[in-house]
């Protein structure tokens, strides 16, 4: 499953994932955003793994935010934007 989101003034956020037993699996975030250190990409993927497929965008954004160290730098990317891309992957929504 595949979801894309470009927030206003942001970069493209792409999420590919599967759903197994009602939970997110093989979550892969990608896009043309800026994120440092680059190891944070894996931290974000891991934070989303096993989240309930019924989770709200707020819950998904909080899961990402809680997993990230305070010194992570995001530009053109946010926990909320990632949550929207996940939501679109899950629900196949058309672009807003």
């Amino acid at each position: 499953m595949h979801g894309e989101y470009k927030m206003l003034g942001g970069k493209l956020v792409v999420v590919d994932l599967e759903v197994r037993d009602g939970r997110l699996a093989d979550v892969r975030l990608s896009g043309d955003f800026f994120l440092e250190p680059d190891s944070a990409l894996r931290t974000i993927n891991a934070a989303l793994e096993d989240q309930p497929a019924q989770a709200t965008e707020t819950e998904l954004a909080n899961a990402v935010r809680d997993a990230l160290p305070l010194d992570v730098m995001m530009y053109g990317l946010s926990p909320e934007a990632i949550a929207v891309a996940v939501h679109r992957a899950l629900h196949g929504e058309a672009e807003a």
Partner: protein
Amino acid sequence: MMRTDWRDHDWRLIHTIPQSPSLHMALDDVLTHEVGAGRRKPTLRIWEWAAPAVVIGRFQSLRNEVDADAAERYGIEVVRRVSGGGAMFIEPGNTITYSIYAPQSLIKGLSFQEAYAFFDEWVLQALGELGIKAWYQPLNDITSEGGKIAGAAQVHRGGAVLHHVTMAYDIDAAKMLDVLRIGREKLSDKGTVSAAKRVDPLRSQTGLPREAVIERMVATFRRLHGLSDDAVRPDEQARAEELALGKFSSATWLADVA
């Protein structure tokens, strides 16, 4: 750490013969590290390309961004760079690419948005001297009345920041769209690309050869910030060649975001 100004530093220029795409990736890595470690003066490097390439951003999906069959058909090498941002389509002579390796003190206290604009103020000035009215379009673009001119990316390493920029001189848009999979979301702000045969803001708006545009840019940087000619040191070159053949040519790195 105190905020420093351009003139507080002794800027060096590296502009050498064409290099392979993977060596360019490696030189950015090594030279940023050297400036951060204090072994190299802050440096402006102008890139020359020895071969066509697609350069994808640090977090872009290889599969989602690049049509591998098309790239192979055209003999285009695909490489991944250390910074975020979007894919670049390179053929020798079709773009102007430069890197600035600077101490982080230069942008201390600036927001990301301010730091991107700060590093390219001299370029806007140079473009003005070439008759192009250009401005910064956040987050990371230089644009003009004739459309987007350039995209920038930054990476922070140790005490250094790498700011690199690719400017469109004269790009074969049809070939680019064959090789890059530009998604629908992305096209929402690049709607003009698909209609045009060439994306040539610098060539069409200056009427000058690429070399003359580069010469003007270097002259502007030199006048504003000071600049003396330099070269990659043998130890830097050796380390970069090692990384170019290793990490930056490896399938692991290229497909790190599959």
